[in-house]
């Protein structure tokens, strides 16, 4: 089975989606000749032409708003937002148009849009290039929100997102673009990564729920924990809206403990929804309160301080300990 980086897997997934459906068009800033600042669209304009891989003027609301019109004309636009911090100018078109168009038109209009957003920190970037805005979109009815944590999921999930008739906000963990994994491009995708969470390591003491860039960190924590004699079950959510609570509930009923980790600020972050729902669904099974580890109630700091903002394996294990000894 070929090994490739997450970035390359997404590139191959996009290529496959464009081959499978001539209505798939890519739009965004610098996605053509440059192949995007992360090269995720590399070579696609060369091979599919500038009618299907479109460099747009520098205006995010314009990118999403025109994609809405293209979708109404029967196309499947895949929009790239260059960095997490630059999706906000398009927030109105996403929240009031993309998310509500089908509902407004009682199903007569479809919005099969995919909005790709490289997100998260850890790459030593300047301001606005390390944000984790997923909660804004998860709280917005009408959107689906997903994020792959590895190459194989990236390859399959981007294709599932594009073929979905619902709008999908597709977060790509930018600091993991270069991490390699095995991808079987020929085998059909059996499990349903766009909708179901994945149990990556089985464990009995504590469950760690993570997604996107934090999954690798959670796995590190599990390894260290194992060495220290703590058996940790790591769950990769993959879908952030809706969330596969069945998988998580089953795990927590077994372990009795849950730590949720994400980069976004903890306050009103996705961890809040997970903690709230699991505290309710597992009320009589929880041995300790659900613990959340994530960003602080501060804007994303200067890159030379980001290691303090970003949860690492130690901070996750610190919460694991608090679950074990409440």
């Amino acid at each position, binding site marked *: 089975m070929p090994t490739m980086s997450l970035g390359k897997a997404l590139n191959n997934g996009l290529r496959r989606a464009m081959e499978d459906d001539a209505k798939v068009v890519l739009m965004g800033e610098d996605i053509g000749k440059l192949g995007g600042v992360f090269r995720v669209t590399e070579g696609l304009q060369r091979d599919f032409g500038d009618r299907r891989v479109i460099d747009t*003027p520098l205006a995010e609301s314009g990118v999403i*708003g*025109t994609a809405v019109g293209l979708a109404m004309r029967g*196309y499947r636009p895949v929009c790239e937002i260059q960095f997490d911090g630059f999706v906000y100018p398009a927030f109105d*078109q996403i929240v009031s148009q993309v998310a509500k168009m*089908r509902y407004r038109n009682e199903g*007569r209009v479809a919005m099969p849009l995919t909005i790709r957003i490289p997100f998260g920190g850890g790459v030593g970037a300047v301001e606005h290039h390390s944000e984790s805005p997923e909660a804004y979109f998860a709280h917005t009815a009408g959107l689906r929100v997903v994020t792959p944590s590895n190459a194989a999921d990236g390859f399959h999930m981007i294709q599932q997102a594009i073929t979905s008739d619902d709008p999908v906000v597709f977060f790509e963990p930018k600091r993991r673009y270069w991490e390699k994994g095995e991808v079987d491009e020929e085998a059909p995708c059996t499990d349903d990564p766009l909708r179901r969470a994945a149990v990556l390591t089985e464990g009995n003491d504590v469950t760690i729920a993570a997604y996107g860039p934090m999954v690798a960190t959670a796995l590190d924590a599990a390894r260290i924990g194992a060495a220290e004699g703590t058996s940790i079950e790591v769950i990769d959510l993959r879908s952030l809206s809706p969330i596969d609570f069945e998988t998580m509930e089953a795990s927590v009923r077994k372990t009795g403990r849950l730590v949720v980790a994400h980069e976004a600020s903890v306050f009103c972050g996705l961890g809040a929804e997970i903690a709230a729902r699991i505290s309710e669904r597992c009320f009589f099974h929880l041995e300790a309160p659900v613990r959340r580890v994530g960003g602080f109630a501060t804007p994303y700091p200067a890159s030379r301080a980001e290691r303090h903002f970003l949860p690492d394996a130690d901070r996750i294990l610190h919460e694991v300990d608090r679950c074990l000894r409440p």
Partner: protein
Amino acid sequence: MTTAQVQVPEPRIPEWTGFDGLVQLISVDGQRTVGCPYWELVADVDAEGLRGLYRDMAIVRRLDAEAMALQRQGELALWAPLLGQEAAQVGSARALRPDDFVFPSYREHGVAYCRGVDPVAMLRLWRGAGLSGWDPAVHGIATPAIVVGSQALHATGYALGVVADGADSAVLTYFGDGATSEGDIAEAFGFAASYVVPVVFFCQNNQWAISEPVRVQSHASIAQRGQGYGIPGIQVDGNDVLAVLAATRLALARASAGQGPTLIEAVTYRMGPHTTSDDPTRYRSPAEDEEWRVKDPLARLSSLLHAEGLADDGFNEEVGVAADEAAAALRQGVLAMPDPEPARLFENVYAEPHSLLQDERDAYAAYLAEFDEEA
């Protein structure tokens, strides 16, 4: 030196040089203007054509009045009247071909009427019985856009799709004078000009954005708003249905001929309140209303028809009857309109199954059932 004293030529603001200012084919007193080349664009509009335009405007005005009445009687949650803008809407809509597509704002009831939308369906939104009322694909017109300016980008994207399809249809999008301040309108101008797509930006400058006069939005003519983007503009008398028809035909022709976007400013007036929630007496004078009353788009065409013997009292009679029938049908349909069932709330949010939504739907159904038992 202090630069303020220097005598050098000011950078000049070029004068607007669309077709010699305002395009007008019928004067305010109902005379045909002479020498305007736009006449060629409506050379095919004969007596029956003129009567048809008048009939459309009269019926649209009557339907608008009925909707106002329905709202006052509590049958509608809100209504945004088009009174005074009939010529701008009918004239532009009648320039469309069946395969063209329209992206309206929330006030284009007259355009929807010309696209064959059932007026009852239009009122579904305003009654609060639904969020829209018709199938855009069937009528070639999207449902109303309430977020000011948002639809111009949709129109531009749709037009991009038209080009990709190799089709020669055009896209017409409507917005108001206030909307021209929104970033989305400017971004639509930018994308449309960059991609040279077949879209016509039709701005009904009805002089007001709720309580704000157009000068709050711009000191320059709105027809000139597109110049900086390389988009030519036409300023047309929006109360002259023939001039609007001609200008829109020209713009649509340019669009489908691959010559790119055009901006049309239809100079008109919102004779009524912004919506039934508004109170114009707080911000504008009766004098201004009066000044525009004499420019009434229907009166103008009517006097031309009668002066030229193209219409008689019988015609007015016939139109009045048709309008009343349409109004009666509208009222009947609105009163018969059912409220949405609770279950409908959970439909059409997503195209595919959604675990959370299903749980919420089931829980609410159970709650209602429980509740009925108790009661």
